[in-house]
């Protein structure tokens, strides 16, 4: 199922690339599309637990890690396209952007925060870290999502409505989970019992 999900954005982008749907500035379109999918899938990842809790559909938890990983793959492609094509590997421009342009700083930090999460997304890593540590590390998805939304908000020139919608969703999802701040793992362990916990398997 997750495999199919992974193909949806790729099919969408691939189809448009093949049929001219990316417009006359395909590079810009690719940067935007990959960024949009990364952020959207990140929000979907965050939504899994609240939706599971409200609907009682526990099997939903199975898609959480795969969707998170796919989100990271799009975030990484977003960055690679920016570095390789938009900036043409001009290191001085890239560094200047990351250091001096707040929206790019925010985007870069988002990617940095997501990297260890993607790297520890295998069952093996969960086992090695132990469920408690793993969950504490993966709490980073919240600051990552907030910074991702900020990245989007700061890049918009005039129409801030779409990024504000994302901000509202992320904040709402965050509020829904405030009763279990994951770094204080005692409560989290209890509420997240439906999480696959290979550390105990």
């Amino acid at each position, binding site marked *: 199922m997750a495999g199919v999900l992974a193909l949806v954005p790729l099919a969408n982008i691939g189809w448009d690339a093949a049929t001219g749907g990316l*417009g*006359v*500035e395909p590079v810009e379109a690719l940067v935007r599309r990959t960024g949009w999918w990364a952020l959207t899938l990140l929000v979907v990842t965050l939504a899994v637990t609240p939706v599971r809790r409200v609907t009682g559909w526990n099997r939903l938890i199975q898609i959480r890690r795969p969707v998170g990983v796919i989100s990271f793959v799009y975030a990484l492609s977003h960055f690679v396209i920016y570095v390789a094509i*938009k900036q043409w590997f001009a290191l001085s*421009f890239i560094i200047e952007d990351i250091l001096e*342009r707040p929206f790019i700083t925010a985007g870069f930090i988002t990617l940095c925060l997501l990297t260890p999460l993607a790297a520890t997304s295998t069952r093996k890593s969960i086992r090695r870290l132990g469920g408690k540590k793993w969950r504490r590390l993966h709490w980073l998805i919240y600051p990552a999502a907030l910074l991702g939304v900020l990245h989007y908000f700061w890049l918009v020139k*005039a*129409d801030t409505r779409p990024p504000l919608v994302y901000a509202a969703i992320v904040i709402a999802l965050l509020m829904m989970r405030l009763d279990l701040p994951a770094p204080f793992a005692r409560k989290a362990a209890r509420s997240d019992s439906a999480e696959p916990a290979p550390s105990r398997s």
Partner: protein
Amino acid sequence: MLIRRGSDHIPSSEITPEAVYLNRRKFIGRLGAGAAAIAAGVPLGSQAHAASQSRGQSDELTPYEAITNYNNFYEFGTDKEDPARHAGNFTGHPWSVDVNGHVSKAATYDLPDLLSSFTPEERVYRLRCVEAWSMVIPWQGIPLRDVINYLEPTSSAKYVAFQTLHDPEQMRGQRARVLDWPYVEGLRMDEAMHPLTLLAVGIYERPLLGQNGPPIRLVVPWKYGFKSVKSIVRISFVEEEPPTTWNIMAPQEYGFYANVNPEVDHPRWSQARERRVGELRPRPTPMFNGYGDQVASLYSGMDLTRYY
């Protein structure tokens, strides 16, 4: 010829292919016919062009397809494709332009009447967007100074202010307050009187399509694209620097002058380079978009970091 009534459906067979168009320009150039017009429109033959040539970069015309499908015209939506999608029925006629302020011939003009005393000229200009992309566009238009001279401003007129149509019925982007509608822009009188400044009515010898700001728009090639206000309904001759839309929106990001300047970055991105639409590799942005020879003297002694 360029203002055609009821000519919304031009068969594609009548559209000059680019290659033919370019050959014709060369042909005209060789003949020496209309040499003045072409010479005036040859900012591409200026020093900046030579500079870009030496870097192995050319200033080829951007295809019509790109010019008409990648637009910032927030009156029809904020995505680049929105204007092409939503401005299909927006043709700009009938159209009248209100001329007011410190000017002898203040009146509301029927546009075709106003334009009937002028002959459109051909101008190939680089267009540099503040977002760091660019195009090369063959405009047809009338030098703004010819129109200004005809209208006879008084000595109190220090600036010219322009206003875009405000009509949320036709312009769906105006139904949301994304910008402070109506869109307003302005030039200092010497900028408005500069021979490069154009009131455009056509592109590639076709009347402007809805997405390009018909029936008449400004083109100021040494300034960022947002200065080139579209679908003008009002021209005011004023004493004080007029308010301008993007400056109202974000004064720290968009100044009144908005001259293309690779040295002064937008707070959120570098202005040192640009990507020509249709190309992959970014190219350096020249000062005043390559028109420095013609316009730099307008700003001598001004601190362009402060008056960005």
